[in-house]
């Protein structure tokens, strides 16, 4: 077997040294009858590389990948161009096959990268500090809720209707098991929420999303003041990190904690995972922050170096007193994020954001001109909501059958509580720099036909 370097002779010699007659003898602590040979498993035997590749390729070809035609699906994952250098670099053995940098002297590559990641996230979100990544945006949102509960010693979290349905479901589930009350405002396609009506003296945090799931962008300054006036924290979720290049940062608008999905930078869609959870906050909340942190220090010769730090917050030191149970981060995805943002730089991030916004704006105008279609949003970044005037899910399916992935019918999503009638006719459309004018025309034409039918 190609991955196993021991030969029969090696095994015999090693067993001799160990003093065991056979490998099975080393399993003598396994209860009788429970140590099996291969026959006990109704599974295939090993295969050569090209056979496995062929089988996996067959699966890959059984899906319609995003690049196969017009594509407008967003909803928390966005199809952006990732420069070839990013994937090249994260495949370097030294990044790909290293472990968590517990031995900093021989892990400065990973550590300095994480330090740069933390800085980039802090800059983009307008916050003081960021951690070295969490699993994804949805679990980061849940962690933020729990952190707010720890900080405020209150036990209720309010989740706005602008928040991604999946994020809502994750927050409700995770906080629910932790014994925290979760007040979910209904889905809010028209940004009409009066979220403050749900905030009371027991509220630890209000979680909003910007741009919202339906695309709205909001100035959160007033909301932040109102939340703070109630003694609660404002948590802002950002599911499209590219928007931070065009929209005022959550930090500047008064957020206490910013969580986000960083997939847009450096990471492919990959069917939704792995991605990279962003988590940033104010310095004063640092020690209540979950997740890994990388910090600057000096070595025995006085040279600058980086280490994992403040691990007294973490489970491997604090066990049941830890700020979170998180052990694994999104290291490699964070590395990809860091490299892509480094390549873009100030100019690139702002240009990319402007390009996305302009293309989306043009596409919205074009699609709103299709008879029967109404543009729901007065404001948006690169994703907006259309009202088709009829149930959108069947339309989406028929367009998919024609080779066009038109977007998301929100009524079909887990976690999207709200006015079912109002939701049923909506279509959430994302337009990134990879969408061409031809793609928009193709969608407009097909949509016109479907709606005329």
């Amino acid at each position, binding site marked *: 077997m190609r991955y196993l370097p021991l030969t029969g002779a090696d095994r015999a010699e090693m067993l001799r040294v160990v003093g065991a007659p056979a490998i099975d003898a080393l399993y003598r602590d396994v209860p009788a009858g429970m140590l099996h040979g291969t026959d*006990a498993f109704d599974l295939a035997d090993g295969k050569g590389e090209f056979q496995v590749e062929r089988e996996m390729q067959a699966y890959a070809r059984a899906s319609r990948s995003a690049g196969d035609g017009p594509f407008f699906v967003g909803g928390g994952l966005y199809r952006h161009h990732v420069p070839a250098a990013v994937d090249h670099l994260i495949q370097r053995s030294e990044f790909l096959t290293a472990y968590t940098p517990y031995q900093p002297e021989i892990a400065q590559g990973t550590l300095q990268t994480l330090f740069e990641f933390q800085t980039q996230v802090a800059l983009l979100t307008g916050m003081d500090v960021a951690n070295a990544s969490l699993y994804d945006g949805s679990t980061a949102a849940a962690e933020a809720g729990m952190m707010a509960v720890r900080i405020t010693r209150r036990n209720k979290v309010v989740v706005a209707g602008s928040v991604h349905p999946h994020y809502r479901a994750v927050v409700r589930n995770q906080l629910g098991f932790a014994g925290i009350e979760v007040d979910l405002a209904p889905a809010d396609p028209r940004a009409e929420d009066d979220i403050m009506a749900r905030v009371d003296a027991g509220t630890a945090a209000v979680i909003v999303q910007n741009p919202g799931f339906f695309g709205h962008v909001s100035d959160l300054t007033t909301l932040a003041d109102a939340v703070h006036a109630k003694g609660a924290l404002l948590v802002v979720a950002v599911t499209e990190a590219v928007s931070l290049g065009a929209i005022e940062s959550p930090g500047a608008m008064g957020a206490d904690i910013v969580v986000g999905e960083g997939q847009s930078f450096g990471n492919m869609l990959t069917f939704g995972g792995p991605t990279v959870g962003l988590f940033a906050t104010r310095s004063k909340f640092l020690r209540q922050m979950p997740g890994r942190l990388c910090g600057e220090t000096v070595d025995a010769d006085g040279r600058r170096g980086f280490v994992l730090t403040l691990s007294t917050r973490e489970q491997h030191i604090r066990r049941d007193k830890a700020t979170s149970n998180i052990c694994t981060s999104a290291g490699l995805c964070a590395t990809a994020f860091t490299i892509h943002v480094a390549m873009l730089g100030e100019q690139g991030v702002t240009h990319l954001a402007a390009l996305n916004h302009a293309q989306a704006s043009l596409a919205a105008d074009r699609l709103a001109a299709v008879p029967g279609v109404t543009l729901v949003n007065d404001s948006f970044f690169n994703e907006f909501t259309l009202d088709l005037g009829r149930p959108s899910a069947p339309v989406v399916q028929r367009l998919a059958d024609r080779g066009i992935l038109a977007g998301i019918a929100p009524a079909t999503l887990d976690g999207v509580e709200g006015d079912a009638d109002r939701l049923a006719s909506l279509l959430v459309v994302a337009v990134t720099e990879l969408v061409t004018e031809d793609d928009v025309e193709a969608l407009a034409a097909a949509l016109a036909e479907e709606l005329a039918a």
Partner: protein
Amino acid sequence: LEEPLIFEQGTPGRIGVDLPPVPAATSRLGGTARKGAIGLPDLAEPQVVRHFVRLSQKNYSIDSGLFPLGSCTMKYNPRLNEKVARMPGFADLHPLQPVSTIQGALGVMAELSDWLMRLTGMAEITLAPAAGAHGELAGLMAIRAAHVARGDARKRVIVPDSAHGTNPASAVLCGYTVESIPGTEDGRVDVATLKAALGPDVAAVMLTNPNTCGLFERDVRAIADAVHEVGAYFYGDGANFNAIVGRVKPAELGFDCMHINLHKTFSTPHGGGGPGSGPVVFAESLAHVAPGPRIGKADDGSYTVDAVPGGGAVGRLKAFFGQMGMFTRALAYMKSLGRDGLHTASGDAVLAANYLMVRLSDEMSPAFDGPAMHECLFDDSFLDGTGVSTLDFAKAMIDEGFHPMTMYFPLVVHGAMLIEPTETESKQALDQLVDALLSLARRAKAGEAAMFHAAPRYAPRRRLDETLAARKPILRWTPPVDARAAAE
């Protein structure tokens, strides 16, 4: 050459990514347009590539040498897996596409589920958890949901003191209080101690088997029986499943659920700390409350996304379907090895650990008697009186060209050194490690403490001041004061 931070290399006027011009369009940002600069540095592509190539060269990795981190399972990461994960049908696929357009991805999930359930003997599975600790949480949620469903909500979770820190942390997150129980002299759970701790308010006992001392919990069946007797569930921490995969079915050991670390047992890369993937398998006893996603098959053979058992008693664990990029890698790995290869792999891993344990015992002090499973544990008694600590000993390994073993874990052993070679190291590589460690042990005993205290000397950095880092945390770059002043 030292490599500055990327922020120290930027100059305005450069671009690293060329983009088409922005077309004229109506702004829809309203009043929210960004007002100030972000503060990111501008570099050209060649500079960025060189920066990260140079940084990478400061890392040790499994591809550059043996990485015997106990409990971390640093095995070889096949390159086929990387190629497969990047096939456009997996990498360029969105989970919110219509189900008719994601059949291949669902097929991978279905086949992966099948492999994992057959290997563990379990009845149900969720692929959603993003990592092992997330899987623990999912499993505990199911346990809580099961108790709640039968009107028997419970409070306590019992965890041996040798367990990973994630076990108690996850239990607390799930609303439980945690009780830690000490192990026996031989590094295992004591059935009597456990029984004494059990009671009707105990929701679950969490057990890692093989445990973090690298030993198989030979009383696992008795423990299971005791746990079940009080109406509690038996949670399996599958972090060490790699020692027994293809040989032992955890369901037969009495576990009601168990998470599996795809990045340990099934070779997906660690990537400097993640991403991971932590599917959870469930026995019949918990199948009725297993969380989603759940992939089914329609009459026409197409895959479906089915409703979750128990009416969603355990809700959504994570947005979308889980770590697909890890699923494709793990499935490619399992197909490559097959049941025969997996059987051989676990055996080779155990053989290698025992070989190290026996050979290293010439100079080092094993914490417990064997046989070891996939890893072997030493305490620091062989260093008594040498002035060399476990930390010093580990740092000295760096100068010998090896990554250190896991230090000071598990907590139950003084100055613990936990060594896990895995099955993908050759005998020559194992012998090199043995020679280096024996030589270091002899030098420690010969009074060369100064050398150990000075280690590492041949690494990109000498020992780093972790206390300073924690006392005065610098967690991000900030522009130098004069630059800020100039900008004002």
